[in-house]
């Protein structure tokens, strides 16, 4: 079910009222909310593509049951190992046992995710690689439909067994409560990814109702709806979709405009959804984690991933990055960064586009880490009066630049199929930008801060080509159009209305304003407004959104993940 639909309004009102009425009865409220969550998952309106087939609910239940049992077993074996003592063979046996149960949970969850999400891509990728070596391997295509929200609930559910295995969480004794944790409808299909250690205690304690929570929740819902529909859906239908569908027919300026539009759209769409999810959670008496923190204000790519889809990047940081470091030590740092970021990218989709997207961000993170380390090291050396001799530094930089340029041109030519002159031009541009970033101090005045934000923002914008393009051919056509730098006409009259420009500029400007303008000032205004007026304003907003979308809202972009 999509949030900005009549179906959801028809669903949410009675569910909220029903849950409030049952708030004093722990068993009934959990059962009610779990049933409502499964109903939400399955009872979508008629859209294109059509909503969930019946077996989706089965998969959700399988994942839930698997992890509930695995959690119990892991905990029981952990207790046995602890009781037996370290050198006791019983402890060793118990530890092996709990590892096997964890493996079962991981294979089960990641196996489901891998099968539904990556199988066809892996088959195709194998065929493509073989074809590049002139070996013809027919690519089978399995008729597989990606279950809604599988990337979210598998990670969420896996955090439960992982935390129990690490001894940071007690297993949940109530299956119904655990099922609710996995299926909680506000965040089931598009996050935020909620950790068991954050949410299960809330479910056990029961909902926390307060006027502050209700009003904050309602505010978040209204804010999210406006963001998602106006800056997300509408900008998409008026600008980004039109251009991304057939990039070969647009000029470089129009393609760049579409990229800016999509950058705003995806933020508004996803953060808007998260706002609605968090708001609903508050109105149900539960606190969900924040997922966005004005990410385009980031000074570098590392900060960006601390502000964008926070729950995903922190999940992979805690359960993968730190584990790789713990196992292999600091020397594996670059590898850990690359691997984690690569998986963040690949989590979003299974196609060559996402392989490129993932590698762009992974490479950017590795570069960022290297640059920071280098600058910090140089600062220390400078203080001590030690520095490599200038000629040696010049040689290092020249060789590094030449190698980077050659590698960049080669990659662009090979994977994006740009002719050598354009590939070299693009690689040259990239090399100059990277040299500029190296020259830019990490900390500085307003100009330095602006430069950092500007460069980081545009790295994000350009990487969106591979995120949004439906396939690699379209991405290639997009890049080709962008580097063509055709200037016969910049943006054709009538392509974009003045309202779309206003939404684009307004949305991006608002993003760079201080948070308190919205979070505090607007919130205060919301709370001071009488309830009847709020209701009328909400009704007017809904009607306006209905007209804007012609009654057919888009699914959230992250629904497809």
């Amino acid at each position: 079910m999509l949030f900005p639909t009549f179906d959801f309004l028809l669903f949410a009102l009675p569910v909220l009222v029903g849950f409030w009425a049952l708030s004093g009865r722990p068993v009934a409220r959990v059962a009610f909310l779990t049933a409502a969550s499964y109903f939400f998952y399955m009872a979508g309106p008629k859209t294109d593509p059509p909503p969930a087939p019946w077996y989706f609910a089965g998969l959700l239940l399988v994942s839930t049951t698997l992890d509930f049992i695995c959690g119990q077993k892991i905990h029981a074996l952990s207790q046995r190992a602890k009781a037996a003592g370290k050198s006791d063979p019983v402890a060793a046996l118990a530890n092996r046992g709990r590892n096997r149960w964890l493996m079962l949970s991981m294979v089960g969850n990641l196996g489901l995710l891998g099968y539904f999400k990556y199988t066809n891509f892996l088959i195709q990728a194998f065929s493509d690689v073989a074809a590049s070596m002139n070996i013809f391997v027919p690519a089978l295509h399995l008729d597989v439909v990606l279950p809604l929200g599988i990337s979210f609930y598998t990670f969420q559910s896996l955090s439960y067994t992982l935390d129990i295995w690490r001894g940071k969480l007690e297993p949940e004794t109530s299956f119904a409560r655990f099922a609710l944790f996995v299926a909680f409808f506000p965040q089931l299909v598009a996050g935020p990814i909620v950790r068991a250690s954050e949410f299960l205690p809330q479910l056990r304690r029961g909902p926390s109702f307060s006027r502050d929570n209700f009003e904050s929740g309602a505010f978040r819902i209204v804010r999210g709806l406006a963001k998602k529909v106006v800056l997300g859906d509408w900008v998409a239908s008026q600008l980004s979709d039109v251009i991304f569908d057939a990039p070969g027919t647009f000029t470089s300026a129009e393609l760049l405009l579409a990229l800016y539009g999509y950058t705003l759209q995806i933020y508004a769409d996803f953060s808007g959804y998260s706002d609605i999810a968090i708001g609903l959670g508050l109105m149900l008496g539960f606190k969900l984690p924040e997922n966005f923190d004005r990410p385009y204000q980031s000074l570098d790519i590392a900060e960006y991933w601390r502000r964008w889809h926070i729950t995903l990047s922190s999940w992979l940081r805690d359960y993968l990055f730190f584990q790789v470091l713990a196992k292999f030590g600091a020397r594996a740092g670059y590898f850990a960064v690359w691997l984690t970021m690569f998986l963040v990218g690949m989590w979003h989709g299974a196609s060559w586009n996402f392989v490129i997207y993932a590698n762009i961000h992974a490479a950017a993170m590795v570069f960022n880490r290297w640059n920071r380390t280098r600058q910090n090291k140089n600062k220390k050396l400078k203080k001590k009066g030690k520095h490599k001799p200038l000629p040696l530094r010049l040689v290092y930089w020249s060789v590094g630049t030449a190698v980077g340029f050659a590698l960049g041109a080669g990659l662009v030519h090979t994977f994006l199929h740009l002719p050598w002159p354009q590939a070299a031009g693009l690689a040259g541009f990239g090399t100059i930008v990277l040299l500029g970033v190296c020259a830019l101090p990490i900390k500085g005045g307003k100009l330095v801060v602006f430069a950092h934000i500007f460069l980081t923002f545009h790295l994000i914008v350009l990487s969106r080509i591979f995120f949004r393009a439906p396939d690699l051919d379209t991405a290639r056509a997009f890049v080709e159009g962008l580097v063509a730098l055709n200037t016969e006409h910049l943006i054709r009259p009538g392509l974009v209305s003045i309202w779309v420009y206003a939404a684009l500029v307004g949305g991006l400007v608002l993003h760079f304003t201080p948070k308190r303008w919205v979070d505090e000032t607007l919130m205060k205004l919301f709370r001071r407004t009488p309830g009847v007026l709020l209701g009328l304003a909400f009704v007017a907003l809904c009607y306006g959104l209905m007209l804007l979308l012609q009654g057919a809202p888009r699914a959230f972009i992250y629904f497809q993940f």
Partner: protein
Amino acid sequence: MATLTAVTETTAAKSPQGLDQRNREADSTAPERFQWQMLGSVGPAMAVVFVSLVAVFTVPQLAEYRPWTSDDPLPFWNVLSRPFPSEAATAAQAHVAAVDKVADEVLAAPDPPPPPVEPAKPVVEAEVGTKLPPFAAGPDDSADVKTELELPTGHELDRFFTSLARSDASIAGAVTRAVHWGDSAIGVDGIPSAIRRRMQNRFGDAGHGFHLMAPANTSYRHREVDFQHNGKWHGCFIIQKCRSDGHYGLGGMTFRSVGGAQSSFAPHEKRSSGRVSKLDLHYAAQPNGGQIRIRVDEGEKIIVDTEADTLEDRFHSIEVPDGLHELEVRAAGSGRVRVYGVSMERDGPGVVWDGLALVGAFTRRMLEYDATHLAAQLEHRQADLVVFTFGGNDMVRKIKMSTYADEYREVVQHVRKARPEMDCLIMAPLDHGERQGQRIVSRPVVAKMVEAQRSVAKSEGCAFFDTYTAMGGDGSAGRWFRRKPRLMGGDFGHATGKGHQVIGELFFRALVHRYVEFRQARDSDGGIDAAANPTPAQPKE
């Protein structure tokens, strides 16, 4: 992402003992009960929303504000009405599934090979008074057909099928020709090429057919022809209405040069049978006409004089031994020359399918042709069938469908009058989609236009192929766009290369299905004369 120097756990990690206590205390703590006053201003706001909802559904004057009407699917469709679809919905789903299956078959199969060089059956001479042998089905003749070719009286394609039967029986010189006009839907020769490939593999290769002297636009591309030009021809395209004499040649474009313009044509070695035995230059003779120089395989120059007292259509035919040959055509000066294009054929038996895309044309643009000129062109081509695929550009016009149908009728009559011996076939436009939010829906005009064209076909004695339904009907533009590989381009109105193959296959199957029925009916009626000439139909006034 935290740096290496800050390897700290940031999860909400607390000591297991603290967690144990909190986990145990939850069930023993008295739950917080909800109280209405906690809602604050949210309570009245929700009440207003609820009252508004009730009001729009109960007050008739507020009907336009209803977020749901009885025309919309039931709320919670996926659990309420989806499990219980109506018969019409079930039938539509089954049809879509059947179309998808054909598309899967086409896409899974290797690219159709070029037609064989030699006919499948030995070539025989037709003896007057004898009958063709009884029909023997080809290997794909019984392929599943989900959208049939509509023959209102059952006899709209009799002459075409009779000619096809002779080609099928491998009668010497039995060439069956179709001229296929259309808008950009058949641009890049995509759909005609897919049909041509299948028809020639089934009935024999009689050559590529007509090719313009130079590209009419950037999408003019006949992949089966190895074509070059030096960019010096000055073209006048029928949609520009730039020739008051209405002489645009079969391909809708006339080319002029006072000297130096040059083009060369050859069958593509890999993408066609690579053979040609008859090269036909289509040109106009006119007062002060100049000279055209022709060479075959860079051999002896042939000079064609285009001087004449009045404007008249002429054709210069060159016969060569069946094989790979290149024709070079050059404006040789001594006046202005005016040319249309070249047709490349083989002696037969087989099929020729001319792809004549008029990109950007409205249907009525065909009326720009001068009647005498059109008759001369079609007479020379000896076309057995004319196929029309128009409507895509007409969708943006704000006209009534009855007006559009009248225009189409006029076009059909204009063309059929030029050659009454020809059968005709109207091929409906492809589905055209538009975005509504995330959905890609069919434009409402498409179904109306299909109906209008169907009525024209019926009234004018033409066969009709409903391409829109063949693609899957309502929503097929969106479905085809979402398929991997895509069958529909990003403008939701033009098929991709793969889409052309699928449409070509759907059309071919429907055509051959009717051909088989015709042959079976005729065989039981006494058979088809080996040298028969069916009575030409009179075009409707």
